[in-house]
């Protein structure tokens, strides 16, 4: 034993990692190979028999996994954008340009003590973040990001979204009640009042779209908006879009409607007594929710994954390189150069301390990564997925930016103003929108 441990102690850190990881990989690889050879056909058989279930499980896993980087990105965006609006620098220590700070935040939250306050209802207190997180993330499932790229295409997709998204308020109320804290209680009650009130104009504002589209499937709604940007529903339903945007801001508990966690009034609202990863879940859910409501706004009103105009250079998958002739040579000779320079320019401009060659190297590497991603997307996924994902992400993050911008600019409304606004203004406006839409459909005979 001493011989082994002494030899182990003499190893450097890379050596230690190497001599643990490589045998492990060998064993796992060999074992996996044998398992696949023995059990492969059987497993494939079982999977093939339950294809819808398998699809659902894969989609749910993918959605849960996607939620984490999305939340990290949103948190980073919130920190950095608000910092710029406040004329601060914001995070700039961890990772390039502070990009890894939200990862560190996640680790920090994991490392914190996870305590339950005395007198709290332990079960409900523990369950509340789970309900909030699940309610948020599962509403992700129906949002289409590219043609054919969605978790599930229900024919009642929008209804599912509102139903599952409405679960979060139950979680918030559970958190508020179980914390055994009056500030939490106030926060939970505010959440209940606010979200339930805003659900009504929110739902009514999309009924106009449902009447126009004739379907509740989000995928179909996006398909209906294909063409140029004039076909987007925002131009047929401007009032509906406005009401929807306001109501969804309140629904996502974002400023200026972030009354449930108003720090200058009720400390942290329902999250006052939470710490550690439970708080992390509540926090995560909020930021994932911000992305989801942005994606839903884009899906319903801004054409989803449709490009705002016809792509001027149609790239079809069955492109024949031979037909390009001398054009191919130009393409190969010019595009990498321009791409490298274009990607290097922002880095070179942003940091005066960066030497030119460093910026060029970064640009070259980035261009290669993008080129490989594009080729892989073209070859293995489909070009539509890549372009659709690009457009839907650009639009969705545009709205994430919009929500962050609101947070940086506006003070908070009072609870009575909030309620007045929902019931006296938004609800009649939504009904008016509904009425006008119905009238237009009848008169124009669509």
């Amino acid at each position, binding site marked *: 034993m001493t011989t082994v441990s002494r030899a182990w102690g003499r190893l450097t850190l890379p050596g230690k990692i190497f001599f643990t990881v490589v045998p492990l990989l060998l064993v796992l690889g060999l074992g996996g190979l044998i398992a696949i050879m023995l059990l492969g056909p059987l497993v494939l058989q079982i999977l093939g028999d339950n294809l819808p279930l398998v699809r659902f499980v894969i989609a749910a896993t993918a959605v849960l996994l996607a939620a984490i980087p999305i939340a990290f990105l949103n948190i980073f965006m919130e920190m950095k954008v*608000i910092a710029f*609006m*406040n*004329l*601060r620098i914001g995070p700039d220590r961890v990772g390039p340009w502070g990009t890894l700070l939200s990862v560190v935040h996640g680790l920090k939250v994991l490392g914190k003590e996870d305590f339950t306050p*005395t*007198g709290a209802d332990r079960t409900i207190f523990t369950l509340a973040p789970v309900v909030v997180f699940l309610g948020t993330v599962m509403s992700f499932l129906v949002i289409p990001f590219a043609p054919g790229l969605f978790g599930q295409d229900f024919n009642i997709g929008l209804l599912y979204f509102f139903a599952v998204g409405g679960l979060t308020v139950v979680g918030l109320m559970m958190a508020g009640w179980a914390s*055994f804290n*009056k*500030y939490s209680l*106030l926060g939970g009650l*505010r959440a209940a009042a606010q979200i339930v009130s805003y659900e009504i104009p929110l739902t009514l504002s999309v009924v106009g779209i449902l009447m126009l589209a004739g379907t509740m499937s989000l995928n179909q709604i996006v398909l209906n908006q294909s063409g140029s940007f004039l076909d987007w529903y925002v131009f047929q339903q401007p009032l509906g879009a406005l009401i929807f945007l306001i109501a969804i801001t309140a629904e996502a508990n974002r*400023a*200026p409607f*972030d*009354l449930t966690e*108003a*720090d*200058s*009034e*009720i*400390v942290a609202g329902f999250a006052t007594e939470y710490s550690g990863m439970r708080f992390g879940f509540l926090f995560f859910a909020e930021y994932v929710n911000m992305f989801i409501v942005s994606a839903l706004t884009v899906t319903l009103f801004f054409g989803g994954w449709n490009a705002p105009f016809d792509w001027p250079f149609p790239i079809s998958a069955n492109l024949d390189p031979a037909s390009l002739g001398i054009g191919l040579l130009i393409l190969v000779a010019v595009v990498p150069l321009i791409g490298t320079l274009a990607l290097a320019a922002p880095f070179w401009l942003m940091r005066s301390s960066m030497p030119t060659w460093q910026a060029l190297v970064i640009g070259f590497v980035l261009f290669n990564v993008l080129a490989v991603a594009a080729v892989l997307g073209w070859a293995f996924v489909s070009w539509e997925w890549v372009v659709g994902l690009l457009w839907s992400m650009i639009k969705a993050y545009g709205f994430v930016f919009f929500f962050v911008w609101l*947070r*940086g*600019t*506006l*003070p*908070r*409304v*009072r*609870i*009575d*103003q909030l309620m007045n606004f929902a019931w006296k203004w938004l609800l009649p406006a939504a009904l008016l929108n509904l009425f006008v839409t119905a009238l237009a459909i009848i008169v124009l005979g669509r």
Partner: protein
Amino acid sequence: MVTHSRQPSADDPRVLLDQEIGVFEPVPPYPPRTEREAEFYTLGDGEMFVNMGPQHPSTHGVLRIVLKLNGEQVVDLDPVLGYLHRGVEKICENSDYHHIVNQLDPLEYISSLFMEWPYVQAAEKLLDLEVPRRAEYIRVLSGELNRIASHALFMGWFALDLGGLTPILWSFIERDEIVEMLGALTGARMLFNYFRIGGVNGDLNHEFMSRLGSWMSRAATQIEANTKLLNENEIFVRRARGLGRMDREMALRMCVTGPNLRATGVPFDVRRAHPYSIYPELDFDVPTRTEGDSLARYLLRVDEVKQSLRIIDQCLHQMPDGPIMARIPRLIRPRPGRAYGAVESPRGQYTMYMISDGTDQPFRLRIHDPSFVHLGSVGRLVPGNLVADTMAIMASLDPVMGGVDK
């Protein structure tokens, strides 16, 4: 009525051992001492106590307010003071006349110069001292700068208590500029310890003047741009308008001074009403507003900043040459007697009343702080409002807890 059993001490850890673990009720561990206390600590139907502070994220300083809530509405409230009490008045009675300036600074940690000013005024009256004109100009100049710094911070705070995130950081930029230049002048960024009996501690220096020059050239536009974020914001205006409305009668009866009084329409400014220093020679207006609500208090302070800029401009143009300190002995023994000093601070009228018995220490130094008076009116303004506005109303009165607890 909530009943209490007599307990050894609220801090005794043995108390916790016997106690049944339950919700913390902010009820004092002794039987009510006054009728008012008994009335306040009796819960009505559907009411609950909420303990706001001293660790609430938006209390200004270490103030604790026990709120009696009915739902979201504040029924009644009870401010609990004393978390910052250090007995400064008593310490001053045992300090040399020169040392007292240093003791007074932390009472007003936002604009320290205005706490030093009434003291040196009172001491100079006792000594029948003629302060050099240059010293008076420097006092006014630095004081008005400090007033702008304080008002800038107020605007940010007020917005922060209404939920705005950005204004506080923008106003801190302005405040930081001013504090940096005052730091160059006085040697400290926060507790300046700058005024002396008979003058000021140091003459204007190059760094101060260059910082001031570059700041003055853009101060007006900068402050205008900062306030635009709030003044033209519908949510802010709708929340602040009519919030914590104080009428003229009430303000006068509660001895409210400063911007809070002028926002109710009373044009009382110590600088004009009981002129001191070189203020009679300077040309500035006393802005007033008649609404008396939080918005009026906020807008009035914006106007005051503009007037302060005017005063600074005049000071810089009329700055005379000469000494900055009167010739006074190291050890001061004023004649026995009483003296009164009052200045107009960003918060109101700071007053000191000093009794000398002929020794080198004052017999009695009474500090009157307007923040204390203004906090007293919170009990009138807040009940009936929502819990969200409690801190906003308090912020609109702009108290500094250092002077409240002394």
